[in-house]
């Protein structure tokens, strides 16, 4: 068999062509470069906390400080309703998954521009970069989630919240959904950002706006009564956020239909993002 193949003239290991398939997941390439993926995740983590006094403690402190601020500003001063849920775990339950989504989105969207120097010098499947971002953020998310569980346990013992334990596995589906959405949207934007740099200026503002359009600091039930409630309901991020609240507080406005809607939107955006990403990676280095 081996010799037969050798006799065949046109037995090439690699063909570099000018046109490539748009919906290519580069699975074989990604498997070959799996060690690079691992090392990039490690680099992300190690490099971030080198030369800091408190190191990974920052992973806890960031959401905690933001939650305290939210409690003060939105809870105490603006007196936004949390629909009876205790403020501290309520904000935290929204903020932790949101931070994960936003980190994935922000960092993926600048992946070409930020890595131009590396991408311009050596080939590896570009998809490794956004994947490493999504995975390294999962580690951060897991640590923050541990903190959240501790705080939640305190409230459960106090008898202030009753989680729906049987729904817990759905939390992981939720994270997957957020990862797919964040990475998909990020890839879509990253592709545009290589040509039109205006996007990166817009991003900080757009992400903030999106946060306020997602039930993070308020429950969907409250937003629904307002005139722009339909907009919040249309947001594909709302169902997973509400599902989280249903899981942990037994108090959320979510149905299988809305979750299906979110999943479909996520898959469509991801495929679109992947296609744009694949199209861009071919020769963005000429325009970046």
């Amino acid at each position, binding site marked *: 068999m081996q010799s037969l193949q050798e006799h065949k003239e046109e037995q090439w*290991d690699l*063909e570099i062509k000018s046109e490539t398939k748009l919906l290519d997941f580069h699975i074989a390439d990604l498997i070959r470069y799996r*060690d690079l993926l691992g090392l990039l995740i490690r680099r992300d983590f190690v490099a971030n906390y080198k030369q800091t006094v408190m190191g990974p403690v920052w992973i806890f402190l960031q959401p905690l400080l933001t939650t305290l601020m939210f409690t003060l500003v939105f809870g105490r001063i603006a007196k936004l309703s949390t629909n009876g849920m205790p403020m501290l775990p309520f904000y935290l339950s929204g903020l932790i998954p949101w931070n994960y989504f936003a980190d994935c989105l922000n960092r993926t969207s600048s992946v070409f521009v930020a890595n131009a120097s590396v*991408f311009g010098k*050596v*080939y590896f499947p570009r998809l490794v970069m956004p994947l490493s971002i999504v995975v390294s953020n999962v580690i951060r998310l897991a640590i923050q989630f541990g903190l959240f569980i501790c705080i939640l346990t305190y409230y459960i013992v106090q008898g202030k919240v009753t989680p729906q334990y049987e729904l817990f596995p759905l939390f992981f589906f939720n994270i997957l959904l957020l990862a797919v959405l964040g990475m998909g949207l990020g890839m879509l934007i990253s592709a545009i950002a290589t040509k039109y740099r205006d996007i990166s200026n817009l991003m900080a503002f757009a992400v903030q706006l999106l946060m306020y359009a997602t039930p993070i600091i308020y429950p969907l039930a409250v937003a629904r009564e307002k005139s722009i409630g339909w907009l919040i309901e249309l947001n594909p991020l709302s169902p997973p956020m509400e599902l989280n609240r249903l899981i942990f507080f037994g108090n959320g406005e979510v149905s299988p239909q809305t979750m299906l809607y979110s999943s479909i939107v996520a898959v469509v955006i991801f495929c679109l993002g992947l296609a744009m990403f694949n199209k861009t990676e071919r020769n963005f280095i000429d325009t970046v």
Partner: protein
Amino acid sequence: MSNVVVKVENISKLYRLGEVGTGSLQQDMKRWWAKTRGKEDPFAKIGDVNDRTVKSDSQYVWSLKDINFEIESGDTLGIIGRNGAGKSTLLKILSRVTTATSGSIKVKGRIASLLEVGTGFHPDLTGRENIFLNGAILGMTKTEIKRKFDDIVDFSGVERYIDTPVKRYSSGMYIRLAFAVAAHLESEILIVDEVLAVGDAEFQKKCIGKMNSVSKNEGRTIIFVSHSTHAIKALCRKGVYLVNGQMRFAGEIEETLKVYEDDIKDPETERLISSYEATERPDSPAQILNVRLTDERGTEQTSFDVFDLIFVEYIFVIREAGLSPISPIINITKDDTELFWSFASDNQPAMIDKPWEPGIHRYRVQLPTPLKKGRYSIACKLGKLRITDIDSLPVKLRFEVEELSFNSDYKSFAHYRPGIIPALLDWHKF
């Protein structure tokens, strides 16, 4: 079975000139509109041949046009051409950093490219962590890097600092570590850019030496890009010569380099010049008046036989009394390589202390002969020692040495013997 491991077929690449970003949305729309109607890209049609010296109306140029060549297993291929000929673009396409507008490249075996060393080095990570990261970026697996780790550290010579963040490395250490990783790549095909060879001469030698041993001992295929004919000659067996994005020549390296060298020859700098007479500038304190190249009878010559004696007559004027210390200087170059500098004060040290008498001074100096066959040029200067030039001739004397009376007993002078200078040395038993 054919031995071809890389097959480049009809590679072309179109580049946009001017400021990318202005008006591109509008053009993108037009292009998209043309595409949806099944028409050709309206901007691709107006592509020109890439000649940067000619201004053209077209905003698009073919950076590469219809490039075809093949590389056999174990070959070393040099890609040469002037700046902007498309060498780097071709390299980038081969490295898959960017894609061609049309055409295809077929490859057998693993291909790795070194357009830069230390790609992806993170300053905060230690040398050890960076070896792994950089290796993985270049396409090695963790197991491969682990196996070669000790070799890499040995080669780099930074063992003591291996657990120190690389931002604390000296730039020399940084480069050595980066090159050490690159040198231990295991791919069958290696693409190397000349920018890799920046740095000091010793480092360049190390790079070229390592690459040579890689291709010779390990039978790997190397594609090397450079505009230095020296480096290419040292390393490559085959050559591809690009002009304005098109293939001008492909073949054995000697032939390719010959075509290249003939092309870049400037007729003006190729003229042989036996003498130069300067126009007098009465206000200058000292000036070279006349220089001549002569044989031993004092006759002006531009062509010499290998064994002929060669003299330079050097006449200069000192107009300002007490001007010191000054010496006539000549320096000799062969094919861009400086052979030596000679000062009249070398054998007359008194020149350094004694002020010059005003008036015309004449010197004759004999060049060391025999010289090997080739073209030489002599620059003449009048210099204040170790400070500055008072005068230097705008034109160099140029002469050639031919092998007219070639004698097989004196093979050390033969042009085909490597080396710049001939040396007939005394070998005896002891």
